[in-house]
């Protein structure tokens, strides 16, 4: 049976999902493996998913996704902790606020492209950081909003590590499936179209600007949900949560995982979380280490971890063709040409 046949893929997905569900029940030290590794990877993965969704479908690389994470998080923290609201309406409002902020930021940021878009969105994340510091009547400034106790929803007590993990897993899976579904809708096709050729999209009659704003708002929606999950995980929201280093974490998770691969979001988030937690055993220079990992991935594995298989099969076909020129004709155009072309194409966009 071929490795890529649907039956094999569905089985692999089922096994992976089962393993992820069993995970919190079998690992030792749940405080570490379930919370610090499991839940952290899931919410960071949701953040990376928000970045990757936007990049894969529109070609826009955003450094601002944490701004929407923070918008949702601070709204919830403020309403629950300082205003005494219950969680359900606070969460709903937090997500709505994140989306609206996304629509607002998107409506001007997407007029820029390439590195200007990158800088603009980075500026938005930094603005959120300074707002968190300055607007202390809402955010409690430096100290942040602390001591948030995760609620019980529909009988699910989010204080329990396992329950919280399973809820985070469910939400992450739903968001992933939603992104996958969108890929095959007219909306998703249109986004991929405008990424390839905005002029053609306009010539067909599409409003490229509106599509990009909607895509940006949708990515902000994903990021806001990441903010909700993170507030259960952190039990607080502080300015450093939306600071520069966290902003870069999201980018690194996305790039290490594979910036055009939706599952890459979670793979990258898991890898980064592992590095963050284990690097302390052999170095105190955690930032330097992540920086090095990032550079190595960008230089040598442009498709990230999720793209390794494809990258190495590409090399294999190339080498195969090289060393056995007699078979050149047998390996049809798809082998070397398409494989190598695909690699270089991916790495430049």
């Amino acid at each position, binding site marked *: 049976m071929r490795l890529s046949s649907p039956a094999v893929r569905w089985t692999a997905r089922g096994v992976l999902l089962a393993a992820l569900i069993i995970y919190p029940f079998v690992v030792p030290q749940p405080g570490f493996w379930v919370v610090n590794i499991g839940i952290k990877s899931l919410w960071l993965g949701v953040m990376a998913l928000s970045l990757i969704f936007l990049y894969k479908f529109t070609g826009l690389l955003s450094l601002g996704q944490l701004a929407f994470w923070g918008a949702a998080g601070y709204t919830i923290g403020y309403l629950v902790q300082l205003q005494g609201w219950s969680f359900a309406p606070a969460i709903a409002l937090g997500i709505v606020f994140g989306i609206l902020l996304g629509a607002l930021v998107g409506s001007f940021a997407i007029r820029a492209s390439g590195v200007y878009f990158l800088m603009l969105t980075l500026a938005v994340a930094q603005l959120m950081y300074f707002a968190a510091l300055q607007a202390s009547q809402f955010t409690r400034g430096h100290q942040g909003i602390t001591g948030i106790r995760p609620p019980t929803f529909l009988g699910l007590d989010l204080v329990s590590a396992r329950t919280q993990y399973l809820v985070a897993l469910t939400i992450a899976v739903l968001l992933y499936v939603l992104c996958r579904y969108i890929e095959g*809708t*007219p909306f998703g096709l249109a986004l991929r179209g405008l990424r*390839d050729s905005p002029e053609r999209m306009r*010539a067909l009659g*599409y*409003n490229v600007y509106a599509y990009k704003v909607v895509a940006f708002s949708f990515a902000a929606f994903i990021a806001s949900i990441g903010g909700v999950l993170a507030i259960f995980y952190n039990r607080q929201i502080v300015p450093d949560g939306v600071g520069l280093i966290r902003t870069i974490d999201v980018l690194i998770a996305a790039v290490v995982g594979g910036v055009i691969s939706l599952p890459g979001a979670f793979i990258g988030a898991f890898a980064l979380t592992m590095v963050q937690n284990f690097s302390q055993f052999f170095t105190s220079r955690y930032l330097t280490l992540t920086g090095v990992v990032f550079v190595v991935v960008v230089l040598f594995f442009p498709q990230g971890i999720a793209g390794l298989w494809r990258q190495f099969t590409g090399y294999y076909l190339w080498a195969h063709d090289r060393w056995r020129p007699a078979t050149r004709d047998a390996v049809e155009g798809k082998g070397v040409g398409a494989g190598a072309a695909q690699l270089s194409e991916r790495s430049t966009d």
Partner: protein
Amino acid sequence: MTDSGNGQAQALRVQGLSRRFGGIRAVSDVDLDVEHGDRVSVIGPNGAGKSTLFNLIAGLYKPTGGTVELFGEDITRLPSRKRAQRGLTRTFQTSKLFLDLTVADNLYLSLAAPPRSVNPLRSVLRDAERSARVRELAEQVGLAGQTETPASELSHGEQRQLEVGMALGGDPKLLLLDEPAAGFSPSERAHLVDMLTNLAPSITLLLIEHDMDIALVIGDRIVVMHEGKKLMEGTPDDIRQSTEVHEIYLGKRHEDT
């Protein structure tokens, strides 16, 4: 309002249209009237301003002077997408395809564009009606066997065929084709001529084509451009007999080849 006698406005009316790029007058003071259902070929040597004229009509470039009317409406200030929504579709001289998408998805996007109301969140696979139309279009432009091939893996000629398919998918009332046969093999050319000959009579066609066999066969009327200006306009026979055209265009082409 422009009136062509039968109570209907002209399909296209271009008046005094000009566009400069720095010091170059790419299009300079061009007038053009096209009636419903007309088949007009635009010819002229490289750099004559043919593509720029198309880009001005389609809204990719803003003119530095003059007006464009589509079906009696002044569209000079409308963006490309609004022109497309009024029934103006086009191909580009250098293919602009969605290279990551399959042939079917490229065609689907041309069918699902506004003003058609398509549920943006219903899976494409469930859209049986448009999927059938996609197959029809693929057949019409000679890509029936390749609907699941990514556009990036098509040959040059196939990419040009897909360009035409996408322009047809937009339900054109006015169709602009910019050198659709460039790089075609003789059989692909024959197929194109066949397809253009059988185009619905209601579609108004503007065709830029270097190949005289195609331009003079498809066009009922020929517009000759030279250095940004409209040099002459006439029937295919007028053009064949014009010494001026032979000098600036045909003659030059024969030297080239």
